[in-house]
Each structure stands twice: as structure tokens, then as C-alpha cells.
């Protein structure tokens, strides 16, 4: 009788261990995939940056672009949301802008799309963007 109970406990513990192991393997796989996607997107971004922007991004995790219609300077920080700072002549943030491509894209892809949009069709991009005052 007691051996039957012990057997149930052993089986229960074994099943829990297997479940935990599977969870760890799945999470590790997701992490690896996510990291690979992020790296791939950052590699693409770096190919499209100017040398100056690549240097800024490498050193500080952000880079600056000039708006195609107004000549305004923007800083694009690494990220996907609320990561665009509109700068004044002194480099203070006067407004934060948020727009990104549809779909669940990696940060590097979002930043590249934001760069191209501001440099090529600034007004159109800002027309659909959300924004809030910056903290100059």
C-alpha cells in the first residue's frame, strides 16, 4: 500500500520535472528566435544608416535625422514606440512622436521605417503619428 503511494509521488515529481524542462526549452527557443530577429533587423538598419548615423547609433543607441519638409532635427532612439524626439536648436526634446509600420516588427525595422519616413515624407508620417510634449 505504502509503495503504491510512493510510486504515485515519484511519477508526479517526474511529470513535473518533465513539464518544467519542456517549458525551459520552449522559452529558450523563443528567446533565441526573438534575439535572432532583432539582430537581423538591426543589421538591416545599419546598412541603411549614413556613416554619421551609424556612429551615433553604435555609441549612444540613437541617431538623428533631418525632416524632409521642415528641416527639423529628430532623434530616433532604439525602440518601437514613443522613441522619436523632436529637437530644438539646443538639442532639447520639444515633442515626442510615435508612429511605426503595421505588424509586430523588430525594433531595428521600426527605426529604419521611421528614419526613411522622416527623411522622405516627414509631413505625411507626422500626420498619422501620435505625439506628446517633450520635456525640454
Amino acid at each position, binding site marked *: 500500500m505504502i509503495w503504491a503511494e510512493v510510486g504515485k509521488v515519484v511519477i508526479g515529481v517526474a511529470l513535473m520535472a518533465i513539464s518544467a524542462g519542456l517549458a525551459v526549452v520552449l522559452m529558450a527557443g523563443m528567446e533565441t528566435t526573438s534575439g535572432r530577429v532583432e539582430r537581423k533587423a538591426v543589421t538591416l538598419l545599419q546598412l541603411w*544608416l549614413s556613416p554619421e548615423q551609424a556612429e551615433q547609433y553604435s555609441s549612444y543607441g540613437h541617431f538623428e535625422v533631418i525632416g524632409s519638409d521642415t528641416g527639423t532635427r529628430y532623434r530616433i532612439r532604439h525602440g518601437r514606440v514613443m522613441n522619436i524626439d523632436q529637437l530644438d536648436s539646443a538639442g532639447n526634446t520639444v515633442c515626442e512622436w510615435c508612429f511605426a509600420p503595421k505588424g509586430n516588427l523588430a525594433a531595428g525595422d521600426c527605426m529604419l521605417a521611421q528614419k*526613411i519616413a522622416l527623411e522622405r515624407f516627414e509631413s505625411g508620417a507626422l500626420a498619422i503619428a501620435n505625439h506628446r510634449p517633450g520635456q525640454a
Partner: protein
Amino acid sequence: MATQIVMDHTGDSRHQFDPADAAAVAKAEARFKKLAGAGFTAVKRLGEGKSEILRSFDPTVEETLFIPRLQGG
């Protein structure tokens, strides 16, 4: 070889074609039109961080990036 790069959840998907291959060019043009119709913006890389928006398919462009439609975040 020319390359069409489409941003997606994997980072991007790449499609290469030979500009001298009429069938491959036709397929690339069809892809261009399909993506543009779906709201993607096609961009040509000019180098040194510069780019140009493409309004129509150009088989001579070496690298075209397709960006999904933008939305407010």
C-alpha cells in the same frame, strides 16, 4: 542580382532576381505591385544613408525595401 527586401515578423524576407531574366523580372514586378497595393512603401537605397521612394517598379534598382503601412503608435 537585384534584391527585394520585405519587412516582416522575421526581420525581413528577401527575394532575388536577375534583371536580365524576363520571367524573373515579371515575377518581381508582380510582387512590387502586390505589395504596393497592400500599402507597403517601396524604397530604393542610394547609399550613404540616402534613399528614394519608388512609385513604380524599376528592374534596374539593385535593392528595394518594402515597408509596411505606417500607423500612429
